[in-house]
């Protein structure tokens, strides 16, 4: 089982869209996939039409009194399940802080379902906190959507530095950054992409376009590939998934 976390310190960069769409692509390829929504906004939960209610609460999962398997809900898509989030996840940092060995809590919970899934996507809230550190311990790779703008570049480099400075915490963690919400009509986007690729050649080649098709996920409440099969963004997520697999 590979654990992939969609993560960025900055919000609004397309983390949830990445988690939901890549999970959908991976499942459509016959992989057994779980999405764990760790964000109290519950956007991934909303996209899959699952009610934002966790029996026993996320707290019980973190503390180990509720098996992760008991919180899993199947989505409408074959081989694609979800652990929903509710608003109580805003206290995730506090729960972890109260728990013994907080950094391994998420990893321990995932170990319970390691035989059932090929891939787990963790949809993380935007911040750098105890939750993030716990996710870093659990994940095999961080998928970092990055908008080609100054602030995004800054946060990407913050993360890069954090990983470099905390080798014990992140261990074998791979950082897979890629450009998200790209508008190729904007000269600024093109320039930032060139500059960033020069500075960070490890960035993935595949890019996700800025598209109303992706924004319509909130209307359809399903992944892009479900209502816009063959569309530009759907093809972009396919390409991204296939590149990620070569890097894992």
């Amino acid at each position, binding site marked *: 089982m590979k654990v992939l976390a969609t993560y960025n310190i900055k919000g609004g960069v397309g983390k949830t869209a990445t988690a939901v769409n890549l999970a959908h692509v991976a499942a459509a390829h*016959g*992989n057994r996939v779980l999405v764990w929504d760790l964000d109290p906004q519950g956007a991934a939960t909303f996209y*899959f039409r699952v*009610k934002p209610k966790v029996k026993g609460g996320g707290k019980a999962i973190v503390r180990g009194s509720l098996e992760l398997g008991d919180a899993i809900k199947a989505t409408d898509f074959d081989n694609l*399940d979800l652990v929903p989030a509710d608003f109580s996840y805003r206290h995730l940092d506090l729960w972890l802080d109260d728990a013994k060995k907080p950094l391994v809590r998420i990893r321990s919970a995932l170990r319970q379902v390691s035989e059932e899934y090929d891939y787990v996507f963790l949809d993380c809230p935007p911040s750098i906190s105890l939750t993030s550190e716990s996710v870093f311990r659990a994940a095999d790779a961080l998928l970092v959507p990055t908008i080609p703008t100054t602030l995004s570049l800054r946060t990407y480099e913050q993360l890069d530095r954090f990983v470099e400075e905390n080798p014990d915490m992140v261990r074998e963690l791979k950082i897979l950054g890629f450009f998200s919400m790209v508008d190729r009509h904007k000269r600024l986007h093109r320039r930032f992409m060139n500059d960033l690729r020069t500075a960070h050649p490890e960035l993935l080649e595949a890019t996700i376009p800025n598209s109303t098709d992706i924004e319509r996920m909130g209307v359809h409440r399903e992944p892009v590939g479900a209502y816009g099969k063959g569309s530009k963004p759907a093809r972009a997520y396919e390409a991204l998934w296939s590149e990620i697999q070569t890097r894992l």
Partner: protein
Amino acid sequence: MSKVRRYEVTAAGDFASVLVVLTDHLGLRLLNLDEGQRSWLDTPTGTLEQAKTTLEFRLPSGEGTPSLTWAAEGRVLVYDPCVSSTPPVQSSDLPDSAAFARLTALVDGGQLVAGPTVNSQIAVLACLDDEEKTTARIIFDRSETLDGVTLPMMLEVLPLRGYEDEASELEKKLKRSVALSASATPIRELAKQGASAGRAAGIENDGTALVSTMSAARSWRAVLQTLNDSMVQSFSGVLSGNDPEDLHAFRVAVRRIRTILQDGDDVIDPESRDRFRHEYRWLGDVTTPTRDADVHLIEFPELVAMLPPERREELVSFNAVLLRHRADCHAAMAVELRSMRRAEFGTAWLSFLADDDAWTGCGDLADEPVLRIVLRRIEKANRQLVKNGRKISKKSPAIALHELRKEGKRLRYLLECFAPLFDEKALATILRPLRDVQDVLGEFQDTEVQANALLELAGELASADDHSAPMALSGVIEQLGVRGADARASFAKTFGSFDDRKVQRAFDQLEPRKKKR
């Protein structure tokens, strides 16, 4: 992990009408409606079945592309909606994708063989919650094997993980709206049983022609296989209920099977014989009310025509009563014919006909030449008919005539089912007057049954304000009484023609004469 819950749909009605209940009454969303051929594939050693998975190849009959689905307990593991139009025969034929890699590894380079194949109508439906999120999938299936064996309509409820409570609620609603009986057998397994039994019965039946030197057991088996074929042919028509002739043909086949079983002592395995006689009696009984209702409807216009023209209009409303009664009878019959009892008995019956061991050493007379045995049984049946027929007088109760009719049927069926063994001229000499006797007895019974049934149904008209209809109906019942009395009056003469010396002598001439060299 969620488990599939299986039900046999025992509700009256065809696929379309049950589907309407599921969508319109229960509000389930129809995701897909498919018609086509389905085959289940596995390795020769059953690797996929051992792994509790199924590999299904589906070939749609209309538009659409062939598909391949690998599933475990209703959960789709891999699905390819567009594959080659021939099923894969080895693991290297499986789609070349990461998705199928696990299946390819499981098959491990081995061959894939097609198991049971059925023609199906399948509807996939979703039960949605108030967020329009699927909580359970429902697969509704109507299939028949390539041999023409109709399998029970099946309904599978697949609760989605985390929605088990919602699925239980749905099941309660389903049970309230559609007649269901729990079933542990997946459609693939039913198809396997149905196909093997149907095929075996078909193969045996193809080449077996009756000859006098054949063993009794082999001949009895061949006759039963032929009768089974005609019963199976009319079965779907019986369920649809569009043509009363289908039910008539079905009932004739059932009655003949009962006669051949009845006269199969010391030829057929006694335990099987008892079991199937009992089941065929039940099968005959469950179809009787519908057949009677058919007869009412068929004959009613003729009876009405016998009334004075000014009274005929008064019975228009009664025709609606008859139609409603017929629909009720048919619905009740369809429930029985789709029941698990019928399915299990049907499968056991086909297996019995196909099983060589069941017909080896099965009775003291099983290996005797058939002609000697069957002539002995015919002689006995004739003796009984003549003896009881001679006892019938003007004062005999109706039941005595009904019993005599049954004895006549037994004799007639024995003669007709084993007809290829007999001298044609002698057979024709016997059958002509025997059929006349049957017609007279049949007319007597039909008029009596009809008169009683019409009297009972007339109660539905009694509450209406218009009293003209019951009056007119009593005229019809009177006509039936006249016809019955005529039939009874003609019995003595008709029976006399059968009990004639020339006809009775023909029984001794049934054995074909050996040709002189």
